[in-house]
Protein backbone atom coordinates (compact mmCIF):
# COMPACT_ATOMS: atom_id res chain seq x y z
CA UNK A 1 0.00 0.00 0.00
CA UNK A 2 1.44 3.31 -0.98
CA UNK A 3 0.26 6.70 0.11
CA UNK A 4 1.15 9.27 -2.45
CA UNK A 5 0.49 12.95 -2.35
CA UNK A 6 0.45 14.87 -5.59
CA UNK A 7 0.30 18.52 -6.30
CA UNK A 8 -0.89 18.51 -9.86
CA UNK A 9 -1.45 22.13 -10.67
CA UNK A 10 -0.89 23.69 -14.06
CA UNK A 11 2.36 22.77 -15.76
CA UNK A 12 3.28 20.46 -12.91
CA UNK A 13 0.35 18.18 -13.57
CA UNK A 14 1.20 18.07 -17.22
CA UNK A 15 4.86 17.44 -16.44
CA UNK A 16 4.03 14.53 -14.17
CA UNK A 17 1.62 13.03 -16.62
CA UNK A 18 4.23 13.16 -19.33
CA UNK A 19 6.96 11.93 -17.01
CA UNK A 20 4.85 8.91 -16.14
CA UNK A 21 5.06 7.98 -19.79
CA UNK A 22 8.84 8.57 -19.86
CA UNK A 23 9.00 11.61 -22.02
CA UNK A 24 11.87 13.94 -22.77
CA UNK A 25 11.89 16.77 -20.27
CA UNK A 26 14.21 19.62 -19.67
CA UNK A 27 15.50 20.09 -16.14
CA UNK A 28 18.02 22.35 -14.58
CA UNK A 29 18.73 24.56 -11.60
CA UNK A 30 21.70 23.51 -9.52
CA UNK A 31 21.64 23.62 -5.74
CA UNK A 32 23.91 23.11 -2.75
CA UNK A 33 23.81 19.44 -1.95
CA UNK A 34 24.69 18.39 1.62
CA UNK A 35 27.39 15.73 1.91
CA UNK A 36 25.49 13.85 4.62
CA UNK A 37 28.71 13.33 6.56
CA UNK A 38 26.72 12.08 9.53
CA UNK A 39 25.88 8.94 7.54
CA UNK A 40 29.33 8.11 6.21
CA UNK A 41 30.64 6.47 9.36
CA UNK A 42 27.53 4.38 9.79
CA UNK A 43 27.10 3.32 6.16
CA UNK A 44 28.50 0.09 4.81
CA UNK A 45 28.66 1.66 1.37
CA UNK A 46 28.80 5.35 0.55
CA UNK A 47 28.50 6.99 -2.83
CA UNK A 48 29.17 10.70 -3.10
CA UNK A 49 29.28 11.88 -6.69
CA UNK A 50 29.35 15.44 -7.98
CA UNK A 51 29.76 15.80 -11.72
CA UNK A 52 29.64 19.28 -13.18
CA UNK A 53 29.37 20.11 -16.86
CA UNK A 54 33.11 19.83 -17.41
CA UNK A 55 33.40 16.41 -15.81
CA UNK A 56 30.29 15.23 -17.63
CA UNK A 57 31.93 16.27 -20.88
CA UNK A 58 35.13 14.45 -19.99
CA UNK A 59 33.22 11.35 -19.01
CA UNK A 60 31.19 11.53 -22.20
CA UNK A 61 34.35 11.46 -24.27
CA UNK A 62 35.13 8.02 -22.90
CA UNK A 63 31.73 6.65 -23.83
CA UNK A 64 31.98 4.51 -26.92
CA UNK A 65 29.22 5.43 -29.43
CA UNK A 66 29.51 1.98 -31.01
CA UNK A 67 28.58 0.40 -27.67
CA UNK A 68 24.77 0.49 -27.33
CA UNK A 69 24.84 1.08 -23.57
CA UNK A 70 27.48 3.79 -23.86
CA UNK A 71 25.56 5.37 -26.73
CA UNK A 72 22.43 5.53 -24.57
CA UNK A 73 24.36 6.94 -21.65
CA UNK A 74 25.91 9.53 -23.93
CA UNK A 75 22.54 10.63 -25.22
CA UNK A 76 21.23 10.83 -21.64
CA UNK A 77 23.95 13.19 -20.46
CA UNK A 78 23.75 15.48 -23.46
CA UNK A 79 22.50 18.81 -22.22
CA UNK A 80 23.03 18.01 -18.54
CA UNK A 81 24.66 20.67 -16.42
CA UNK A 82 25.38 18.53 -13.40
CA UNK A 83 24.58 15.33 -11.60
CA UNK A 84 24.91 15.03 -7.86
CA UNK A 85 24.33 11.76 -6.07
CA UNK A 86 24.53 10.91 -2.38
CA UNK A 87 23.70 7.31 -1.64
CA UNK A 88 24.35 5.35 1.53
CA UNK A 89 23.71 1.69 2.21
CA UNK A 90 23.49 0.30 5.73
CA UNK A 91 23.71 -3.10 7.36
CA UNK A 92 20.96 -2.19 9.80
CA UNK A 93 18.49 0.57 10.51
CA UNK A 94 20.08 4.00 10.43
CA UNK A 95 19.19 7.40 11.80
CA UNK A 96 17.55 9.44 9.07
CA UNK A 97 19.65 12.57 8.56
CA UNK A 98 16.85 14.99 9.32
CA UNK A 99 19.15 17.99 9.69
CA UNK A 100 20.69 17.56 6.25
CA UNK A 101 17.34 16.77 4.69
CA UNK A 102 15.93 19.92 6.25
CA UNK A 103 18.91 21.85 4.90
CA UNK A 104 18.17 20.48 1.46
CA UNK A 105 14.44 21.06 1.69
CA UNK A 106 15.09 24.64 2.73
CA UNK A 107 16.50 25.22 -0.76
CA UNK A 108 13.62 23.47 -2.47
CA UNK A 109 11.07 26.14 -1.84
CA UNK A 110 8.48 27.82 -4.02
CA UNK A 111 8.20 29.56 -6.31
CA UNK A 112 11.24 28.03 -7.95
CA UNK A 113 10.84 24.55 -6.57
CA UNK A 114 7.66 22.57 -6.31
CA UNK A 115 7.19 19.32 -4.46
CA UNK A 116 5.76 17.12 -7.18
CA UNK A 117 5.54 13.84 -5.29
CA UNK A 118 5.64 12.87 -1.64
CA UNK A 119 5.04 9.19 -1.32
CA UNK A 120 5.20 6.62 1.46
CA UNK A 121 5.07 2.91 0.83
CA UNK A 122 4.03 0.74 3.71
CA UNK A 123 4.98 -2.42 1.84
CA UNK A 124 8.67 -1.59 1.57
CA UNK A 125 8.74 1.14 4.23
CA UNK A 126 10.12 3.67 1.82
CA UNK A 127 9.56 7.38 1.38
CA UNK A 128 10.00 9.21 -1.87
CA UNK A 129 10.05 12.92 -2.49
CA UNK A 130 10.35 14.48 -5.92
CA UNK A 131 10.96 18.17 -6.39
CA UNK A 132 10.93 19.97 -9.71
CA UNK A 133 12.26 23.43 -10.41
CA UNK A 134 10.81 25.60 -13.08
CA UNK A 135 11.35 28.96 -14.61
CA UNK A 136 8.86 30.48 -17.00
CA UNK A 137 6.82 27.31 -16.72
CA UNK A 138 9.76 25.26 -17.93
CA UNK A 139 11.11 22.44 -15.69
CA UNK A 140 14.78 23.09 -15.01
CA UNK A 141 15.76 20.90 -12.10
CA UNK A 142 15.04 17.58 -10.46
CA UNK A 143 15.70 16.44 -6.92
CA UNK A 144 14.88 13.00 -5.60
CA UNK A 145 15.01 12.01 -1.94
CA UNK A 146 14.51 8.29 -1.34
CA UNK A 147 14.50 6.93 2.19
CA UNK A 148 14.48 3.16 2.57
CA UNK A 149 15.05 0.94 5.63
CA UNK A 150 18.63 0.13 4.59
CA UNK A 151 19.35 2.84 2.06
CA UNK A 152 19.22 6.59 1.75
CA UNK A 153 19.62 8.29 -1.61
CA UNK A 154 19.47 11.84 -2.84
CA UNK A 155 19.83 12.68 -6.52
CA UNK A 156 19.98 16.13 -8.05
CA UNK A 157 20.05 16.64 -11.78
CA UNK A 158 20.43 19.98 -13.49
CA UNK A 159 20.06 20.52 -17.19
CA UNK A 160 18.08 18.89 -19.94
CA UNK A 161 17.36 15.27 -19.19
CA UNK A 162 15.51 12.75 -21.26
CA UNK A 163 13.82 10.50 -18.74
CA UNK A 164 12.80 8.05 -21.42
CA UNK A 165 16.41 7.53 -22.41
CA UNK A 166 17.48 7.41 -18.79
CA UNK A 167 14.92 4.78 -18.00
CA UNK A 168 15.95 2.83 -21.08
CA UNK A 169 19.24 2.20 -19.28
CA UNK A 170 17.37 -0.07 -16.88
CA UNK A 171 18.94 -3.50 -17.02
CA UNK A 172 22.30 -2.00 -17.93
CA UNK A 173 24.95 -0.20 -15.90
CA UNK A 174 24.29 -2.59 -13.05
CA UNK A 175 20.71 -1.40 -12.76
CA UNK A 176 18.53 -4.43 -12.07
CA UNK A 177 15.63 -4.62 -14.47
CA UNK A 178 12.34 -4.88 -12.67
CA UNK A 179 10.23 -7.90 -13.57
CA UNK A 180 7.42 -6.97 -15.92
CA UNK A 181 4.70 -7.67 -13.39
CA UNK A 182 6.46 -6.23 -10.37
CA UNK A 183 5.56 -2.64 -10.90
CA UNK A 184 1.95 -3.47 -11.54
CA UNK A 185 1.83 -5.71 -8.47
CA UNK A 186 3.40 -3.12 -6.26
CA UNK A 187 1.03 -0.51 -7.49
CA UNK A 188 -1.87 -2.56 -6.21
Amino acid at each position, binding site marked *: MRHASFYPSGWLARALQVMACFPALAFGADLQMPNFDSLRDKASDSVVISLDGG*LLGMAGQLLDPSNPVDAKAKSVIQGLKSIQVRSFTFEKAYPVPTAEISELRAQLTPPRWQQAIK*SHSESDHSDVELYIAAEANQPQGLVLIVTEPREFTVVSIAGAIDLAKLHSLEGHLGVPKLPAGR*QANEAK
Partner: protein
Amino acid sequence: MSRDLEQDLRQALRPVDPSAELTSKLLAAIPTKHPATTRSARPWLRQMAVAASILLALGLSWGTYQHQQQERASQAHAELLKALAITNRSLDHVYRAVQSLDADRGHGG
Protein backbone atom coordinates in the same frame (compact mmCIF):
# COMPACT_ATOMS: atom_id res chain seq x y z
CA MET B 1 123.94 -1.23 -4.42
CA SER B 2 120.35 -0.29 -3.95
CA ARG B 3 121.41 2.81 -2.07
CA ASP B 4 123.42 3.94 -5.06
CA LEU B 5 120.46 3.42 -7.33
CA GLU B 6 118.26 5.41 -5.00
CA GLN B 7 120.77 8.18 -4.88
CA ASP B 8 121.07 8.20 -8.65
CA LEU B 9 117.28 8.46 -8.98
CA ARG B 10 117.11 11.31 -6.53
CA GLN B 11 119.85 13.05 -8.42
CA ALA B 12 118.14 12.52 -11.74
CA LEU B 13 114.70 13.54 -10.52
CA ARG B 14 115.69 16.49 -8.43
CA PRO B 15 113.72 19.64 -9.05
CA VAL B 16 115.42 21.98 -11.41
CA ASP B 17 114.47 25.60 -11.86
CA PRO B 18 113.61 26.45 -15.44
CA SER B 19 115.93 28.73 -17.19
CA ALA B 20 114.92 32.37 -17.63
CA GLU B 21 114.81 31.85 -21.38
CA LEU B 22 112.29 29.02 -21.10
CA THR B 23 110.14 31.04 -18.75
CA SER B 24 110.06 34.00 -21.07
CA LYS B 25 109.19 31.76 -24.05
CA LEU B 26 106.36 30.14 -22.18
CA LEU B 27 104.97 33.43 -21.01
CA ALA B 28 105.20 34.76 -24.52
CA ALA B 29 103.27 31.75 -25.82
CA ILE B 30 100.35 32.25 -23.42
CA PRO B 31 97.78 34.59 -24.91
CA THR B 32 97.26 37.60 -22.71
CA LYS B 33 93.50 37.72 -23.58
CA HIS B 34 90.98 35.03 -24.31
CA PRO B 35 89.92 35.06 -27.89
CA ALA B 36 86.87 37.27 -28.18
CA THR B 37 85.28 34.67 -30.38
CA THR B 38 84.93 31.99 -27.69
CA ARG B 39 81.53 33.14 -26.46
CA SER B 40 80.23 34.96 -29.46
CA ALA B 41 81.27 32.50 -32.13
CA ARG B 42 78.22 30.22 -31.45
CA PRO B 43 75.54 32.30 -29.80
CA TRP B 44 72.85 30.10 -31.31
CA LEU B 45 74.18 27.13 -29.33
CA ARG B 46 73.29 28.75 -26.05
CA GLN B 47 69.94 29.90 -27.36
CA MET B 48 69.16 26.47 -28.69
CA ALA B 49 70.02 24.92 -25.35
CA VAL B 50 67.65 27.32 -23.60
CA ALA B 51 64.94 26.69 -26.17
CA ALA B 52 65.42 22.94 -25.89
CA SER B 53 65.13 23.15 -22.12
CA ILE B 54 61.93 25.16 -22.38
CA LEU B 55 60.50 22.75 -24.93
CA LEU B 56 61.43 19.80 -22.76
CA ALA B 57 59.80 21.41 -19.72
CA LEU B 58 56.69 22.24 -21.72
CA GLY B 59 56.55 18.73 -23.12
CA LEU B 60 56.86 17.16 -19.70
CA SER B 61 54.21 19.51 -18.28
CA TRP B 62 51.85 18.78 -21.16
CA GLY B 63 52.39 15.05 -20.79
CA THR B 64 51.71 15.24 -17.07
CA TYR B 65 48.61 17.37 -17.69
CA GLN B 66 47.34 14.94 -20.32
CA HIS B 67 47.89 12.01 -17.99
CA GLN B 68 46.03 13.77 -15.17
CA GLN B 69 43.18 14.67 -17.52
CA GLN B 70 42.95 11.08 -18.68
CA GLU B 71 42.78 9.88 -15.10
CA ARG B 72 40.11 12.46 -14.26
CA ALA B 73 38.11 11.46 -17.32
CA SER B 74 38.33 7.78 -16.38
CA GLN B 75 37.17 8.56 -12.86
CA ALA B 76 34.38 10.79 -14.15
CA HIS B 77 33.32 8.06 -16.55
CA ALA B 78 33.05 5.51 -13.76
CA GLU B 79 31.22 7.98 -11.53
CA LEU B 80 28.82 8.87 -14.34
CA LEU B 81 27.82 5.25 -14.89
CA LYS B 82 27.33 4.77 -11.17
CA ALA B 83 25.33 8.01 -10.86
CA LEU B 84 23.09 7.00 -13.75
CA ALA B 85 22.53 3.59 -12.21
CA ILE B 86 21.57 5.08 -8.84
CA THR B 87 19.40 7.73 -10.49
CA ASN B 88 17.60 5.11 -12.51
CA ARG B 89 17.00 2.99 -9.43
CA SER B 90 15.69 6.01 -7.54
CA LEU B 91 13.40 7.01 -10.38
CA ASP B 92 11.79 3.59 -10.15
CA HIS B 93 10.34 4.69 -6.82
CA VAL B 94 8.77 7.68 -8.55
CA TYR B 95 7.36 5.57 -11.34
CA ARG B 96 5.92 3.13 -8.85
CA ALA B 97 4.34 6.00 -6.93
CA VAL B 98 2.81 7.36 -10.13
CA GLN B 99 1.50 3.94 -11.04
CA SER B 100 0.19 3.49 -7.52
CA LEU B 101 -1.74 6.72 -7.79
CA ASP B 102 -3.08 5.72 -11.18
CA ALA B 103 -4.17 2.38 -9.73
CA ASP B 104 -5.85 4.08 -6.76
CA ARG B 105 -7.62 6.45 -9.11
CA GLY B 106 -8.69 3.50 -11.23
CA HIS B 107 -10.14 1.71 -8.22
CA GLY B 108 -11.78 4.86 -6.99
CA GLY B 109 -13.25 5.77 -10.37
